[in-house]
């Protein structure tokens, strides 16, 4: 007994020491390794997860998604319809000592929009034509037309140090202005950052962060359970009961079904409305996502997005009404082809099959066609013959209606199935309206119009789920960024 007691005490001491030694360390398991640590080059989720902590942007967002000045001293001002003036914060230095100033901003903007640089992020910035230095802390940006989305775009553009970014090792040794600075990258294994002791903003609490790259969700879960990780991304809904803490927050992803408004049985607006009334969205959220999804309110936007119309609510689940509408449209027994894919998005196949069952129950014949992703994309992008109903999951990183609406709502968009000129005009107008209030009201009209015309069967807004260890406090963000400066390790 005595020996056992000593052993226990010894173990306890070792554990206490270990806990003390990495009291403010956090390990985060993400799904994929960054392909580069150059923050302006690729469109790469792994790269973003790490660099969001090293680099900063002129505009930032609160955890709830509201745009606030970041490296900008105040909100940029529009001095003519195509020119924005940005005042910069003073006294900020990059991790290597280079000053943050107008030269750094001008350099960063010109670097990313340079066609020769060939950035994969260019679609976020293709309206920006030029950047000019006014004085050491003032910059003007020129756009090719009025660009109301510029502030959102600036929230995506990371500012790089002019000198160090010319270094050939820049993509492996990132240097930013952010709360964490780069220490080490063991390819295939991990990336380590430490707290920037000279950070200009609120001092972060976590002193050291390590990123691990674990593709397999079950392995991420095991690592969290074994105490190796503090935060794991994309926790599967069915695992949420097993982890110390599962935090969930309404994310950027919307599964939706595009209905063909120009042909087939779905040409009749009553049929399209019926296909909305027929689906029990609450049951889908509960049954397939264990409650970690919310019913989309009749629009391809999350509440945090610019343009969200709070007055529009989801079509309620009403199979009787759906049956009546189908009868009135003479579409009882009509065949509707529903196109989907499997294994690309969380629960993609399950959603398609559940919706098909709901549709069948009100009297249409749903022909489910699940394609391999490439073939599925052929159908989604086919502009000549549109499928009756195409399932897709849309994601929108800029938190602004423009991207989703241009792609799926607007006639001729890459995934749209309507030729509604009025809707297209609204979307075009919103794109160049620089008065925020007016622009918002245009989107509200567009949301309402698409809702009344039932151009889609709106389904859900999926929540991002993270597994979190008991020792870390963190509550997640609507923009899905994992900012270590917002974390706290419990004593």
């Amino acid at each position, binding site marked *: 007994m005595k020996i056992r007691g000593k052993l226990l005490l010894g173990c306890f001491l070792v554990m206490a020491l270990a806990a003390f030694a990495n009291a403010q360390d956090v390990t985060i398991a993400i799904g994929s390794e960054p392909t580069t640590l150059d923050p302006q080059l690729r*469109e790469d989720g792994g790269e973003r997860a790490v660099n969001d902590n090293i680099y900063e942007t002129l505009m930032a967002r609160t955890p709830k998604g509201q745009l606030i000045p970041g490296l900008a001293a105040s909100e940029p001002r529009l001095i003519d319809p195509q020119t924005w003036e940005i005042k910069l914060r003073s006294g900020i230095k990059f991790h290597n000592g280079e000053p943050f100033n107008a030269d750094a901003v001008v350099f960063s903007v010109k670097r990313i929009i340079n066609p020769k640089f060939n950035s994969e992020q260019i679609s976020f910035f293709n309206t920006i034509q030029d950047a000019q230095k006014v004085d050491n802390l003032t910059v003007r940006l020129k756009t090719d037309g009025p660009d109301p989305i510029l502030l959102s775009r600036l929230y995506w553009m990371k500012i790089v140090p002019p000198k160090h970014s010319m270094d050939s090792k820049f993509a492996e040794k990132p240097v930013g202005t952010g709360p964490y600075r780069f220490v080490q990258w063991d390819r295939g*294994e991990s990336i380590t950052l430490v707290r920037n002791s000279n950070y200009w903003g609120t001092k972060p609490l976590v002193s050291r962060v390590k990123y691990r790259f674990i593709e*397999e969700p*079950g392995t991420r879960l*095991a690592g969290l359970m074994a105490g190796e990780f503090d935060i794991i991304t994309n926790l599967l809904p069915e695992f949420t009961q097993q982890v110390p803490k599962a935090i969930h927050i309404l994310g950027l992803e919307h599964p939706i079904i595009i209905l063909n408004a120009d042909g087939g049985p779905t040409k009749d607006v009553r049929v399209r409305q019926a296909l909305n009334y027929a689906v029990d969205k609450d049951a889908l959220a509960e049954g397939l996502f264990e409650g970690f999804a919310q019913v989309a309110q009749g629009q391809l936007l999350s509440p945090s997005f610019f343009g969200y119309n709070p007055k529009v609510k989801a079509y309620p689940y009403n199979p009787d009404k759906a049956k009546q509408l189908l009868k009135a449209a003479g579409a009882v027994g009509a065949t509707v082809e529903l196109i989907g894919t499997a294994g690309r998005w969380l629960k993609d196949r399950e959603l398609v099959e559940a919706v098909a069952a709901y549709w069948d129950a009100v009297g249409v014949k749903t022909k489910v066609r699940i394609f391999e992703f490439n073939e599925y994309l052929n159908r989604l992008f086919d502009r000549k013959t549109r499928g009756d109903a195409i399932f897709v999951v849309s*994601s929108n990183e800029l938190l602004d209606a423009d991207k989703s609406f241009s792609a799926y709502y607007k006639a001729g968009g890459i*995934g749209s199935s309507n030729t509604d000129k009025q809707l297209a005009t609204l979307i075009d107008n919103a794109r160049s309206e620089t008065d925020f209030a007016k622009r918002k009201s245009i989107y509200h009209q567009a949301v309402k119009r698409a809702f009344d015309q039932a151009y889609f069967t709106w389904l859900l807004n999926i929540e991002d789920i993270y597994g979190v260890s008991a020792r870390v406090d963190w509550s997640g963000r609507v923009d899905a960024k994992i900012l270590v400066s917002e974390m706290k390790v419990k004593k």
Partner: protein
Amino acid sequence: MGRYILRRLLHGIIVIFGVTIIVFVVTRMVGDPVKVMLPLEATLEQRAAFEKQLGLDRPIMVQFVEFMGDVARLDFGDSLWQHRPAMEIVFEKLPLTLVLTAVGIGLAFVLSIPLGIIAALRPGGVSDRSTVFVSLIGLSVPQFWLGLLFIVVFAVQLHWLPTSGTATIAHIILPGLTMALPVLARLVMIVRSSMIDELNQQYVQTGYAKGIPFLRVVGLHALRNASLPVATLVGWETIRAIAGYSVVVETVFAWPGLGLTAIQAIEREDLILLQAIVFSVAVLVVMINILMDIAYTLIDPRLRLA
């Protein structure tokens, strides 16, 4: 012997070329990296520009001729996903897969010989039956499940070993065991059955009658004659480990080797990287086959005539 190996090498080169051509055709038939790599909402203009940038807008024959030139120079170009030379990635990942394979196959081989012999000494006895029983379990258990089971037991519950990664020696134990067990099961069965065959041969009885010690009869004479099928299986399992098991085991244990990279390249439709991986694995398979042929002649000199 030299001419024989030369002939085998020639066969190998034909096989490698065949495989690379098939990969070229198949990836271009079923896949379109442009569609998969760009965000869904990318416009048609952006797609066209990207296709041009990748050089995938050119006629397939032009691409093929260039591709064959690349193969000859062992330069497949930059990975579409990682934007660095595909062969650089292969050379970075391959050693990890080879280490894992060596540990897995080595462990299986070393353990299978004594276990198989013990089982063969008394066919139908307790040790034989329990060996066969455990081997059958090892054969039937899916490897990814076995890996997860190990993680749950030894990492999550007992905290003895880490769940994933490559940081220390301890990190290789679980993936190594997961790699080894199904191989061990198959090897034990084959050692057992060939030993049973050999031990019933007359020369064994003669050996005993002459007074040669038991260990020498079993361990030297019988084992040497029984080792041909064992060697065949070891070679075959090594190939399967590099080209198959590694995909599962590396995924489960986040072991950043060639198998995990292959899966990632397929998911991202990275044709270039995939070609480089398949080519390298094909070369390895051919090399292992030639090594096996040489090993045969060492085990059984009569085969040298062939």
